[in-house]
């Protein structure tokens, strides 16, 4: 229902807390810029920050490719060609192509890959997308469910648990529901036709821990 969602957007913008919303935006941009410009150092940072040593549980690493974790292509490598343009999104786990380690040791590594028309993406989103393919954490920042719903008419991602709605065309910003922040973004590139990780997640993956 596009009308309702537009209204929602307006009411968010018109919220008396305009300042905090702005600062949220700024911080997201900052993160994004860092992710763009400093992909490599972020990559190291993510390793350094994490005490995780099990490669199956490590968050996606630069150069990882993806295997579909569900659906008709389950177990196959995700390529530009087997991701339908316009959606729906695919669930995938990162795979280290050198060691063939599938990073499915933690559900927090589930990634949503959506193939969208490049023209539909906002500039900052296009900059981290790979030929229209965008990657996001599949874990809802509200209470941690898999964001498995897809609304085809608006091309929105929906979390079935409490209806948080995200726009994958615009850095998966929250357009509805209780999620406190957007889905962490995973920079991508295409290498040998395969969808490949180009940087670390833009933010901590998982539910709010307050």
């Amino acid at each position, binding site marked *: 229902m596009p009308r*309702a969602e537009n209204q929602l957007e307006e*009411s968010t913008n018109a919220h008396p807390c305009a300042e905090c919303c702005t600062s949220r935006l700024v911080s997201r941009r900052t993160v994004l810029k860092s992710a763009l410009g400093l992909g490599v150092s972020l990559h190291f940072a993510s390793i350094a920050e994490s005490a995780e040593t099990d490669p199956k549980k490590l968050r996606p690493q630069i150069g990882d490719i993806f295997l579909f974790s569900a659906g008709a292509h389950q177990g196959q490598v995700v390529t530009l060609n087997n991701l339908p343009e316009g959606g729906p999104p695919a669930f995938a786990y990162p795979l280290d192509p050198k060691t063939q380690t599938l990073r499915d040791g933690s559900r927090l590594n589930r990634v949503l890959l959506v193939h969208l028309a490049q023209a539909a993406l906002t500039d900052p989103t296009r900059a981290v997308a790979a030929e229209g393919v965008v990657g996001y954490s599949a874990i809802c920042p509200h*209470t941690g*469910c*898999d964001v*498995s719903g897809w609304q085809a008419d608006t091309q929105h991602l929906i979390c079935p*648990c409490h*209806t948080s709605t995200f726009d994958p065309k615009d850095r998966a910003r929250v357009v*509805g529901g209780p999620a406190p922040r957007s889905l962490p973004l995973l920079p991508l590139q295409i290498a040998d036709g395969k969808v490949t990780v180009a940087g670390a997640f833009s933010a901590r993956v998982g539910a709010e821990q*307050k």
Partner: protein
Amino acid sequence: MNQVIRLMPFVLMTLVSLLSSPVTAQSPVPYTPVTAERLLQPEADNWLMYRRTYDGWGYSPLDQINTKNVATLAPSWTFSTGVEEGHQSPPIVNNGVMFITTPKNQVLALDAKSGEILWRYRRELPEDLFQLHPTNRGIALYGDKVFLATVDAHLLALNAKTGEVVWDQTVENYLTGYYMTLAPLVARGKVMVGVSGGELGIRGFIQAFDAETGKPVWKTHTVPGPGEKGHDTWPGETWKTGAVSIWVTGTYDPQLNLAYWGTGNPGPFLSEVRRGDNLYANSVIALDADTGEIKAHHQYHWNDAWDWDEVSAPLLLDVKRPGKSFKALVHAGRNGYLWLLERHADKITFVDATPFVHQNVFTKLDPETGRPSYDPQRIFGVGKRAEFCPSLSGGKTWPPAAYNPQTGYLYIPANENLCSALTGKQETYTAGQLYMGVDFSDIEFVPRPEAKQHIGELQAWDLNAGKKAWTVKFKSHNWGPVLTTGGGLVFMGGTNDRYFRAFDAKTGKQLWQQRTNSGVVGVPTTYQIDGVQYIAVQSGWGVDAQRVQEFLDKAWGVKTFIPQGGVLWVFALRK
């Protein structure tokens, strides 16, 4: 790793002497152990379990606060929990010590008179946990322990005096979709809990643990396995993912030694993949508290296709009908019918049932057994959309009804004028993933035109006469658990306008209201200390109330803002 913050008396003394006059210096509140006898016959001043008494009435005989003076009820103290989401648990009070829980399995022990914090327990939940129902419905007490069922499917015993973990028992693996939201039920030295996860293809069960040691005593599946009675009501392998969650604390008849539990819907929602009655879904089951054996059951409706979990346990009370007085089980169903059953040692018999909200699925009930027949148009299938009333969340879902022996009325927190629609899809089961046979975008809430005028209701039913006595209507949908008292009062919040209200139990006339921080979805309780009666309730909107609000907003193209964040409110008469 868990965190307990305990405020030692000397810390309090120091704080008090620094900050205020020394006359208010706190002494530690002595703790009175909870015995089996006290659970059977709780003192009027206390509220020792989920509904105060085993019969599930939600009734306290206290009458200092009554119809004549409730207009002067005012906040005595409040306490911020620091947590968002649905605050549904009752303040449990044992001789001056109060326990509340919050989402994320925090337990707070407070001085029930002064509001001073005694200790706080916070569970460090696994980072890969997901919570479909971020809530907790309260603790149980026994001996000097506090029992907590956690959202990562553990059962904990805490030291009531310190909040320290005495034992921690894994009930199931949360990664496969099991979790717990209910307040445990304690009887005969055992702690009984049941599991949730009905949307995730679990196989439900109720399990009892030894209160002292935490050792498992018995475990009874709510979906019978091979060789068990009722197994043939599930085709093929469907029993393995048959759901039938336990969401809410059972009631208990000590004479029969039977614990009565309401059971959830079968999974997946899509009924055509599990043709059959699907026992013991949407039922009341009576379990022997010593062995866990299912001694009797009554299935309210078979092969559910509407997500109508019959989560609430029936209330146990005596009903008088012309020429007959009997021990009843009373249940206001999510399926929109008010069920009156008779309980026996070895069976449950049907007495009558009547719709308390608009219901368009049942075409008739068998007069002998109560088994409903269905309108096939109201059953969705793969690619077949079906609309039905009441909605997915039913005529009444988890918020408990209450019974007042003075009026003889049952008080039902109901929702009217809301319907739903579902469309099915084929789905394969993956452990720990949603398994509903319905795509999220194919779940709809369809308000009837009348819903613009009102949805929420508080209904009073005269069970002896078999008639509704009165109804209070609210514009908002209603998620308010009900408390009723010897003061002739009924207390309930539940609406999205953040009010907590008191009504005359005889007439339904509203006598008092207080606007709170958030929407009140907590179970209200009452207790008395040093001759002063208090009413206590948590205000903290979230979970299903929030979800249905989102659906309604979508249907109506509006955006409703209901602030979140829990606060405990404690009221007393103005001096």
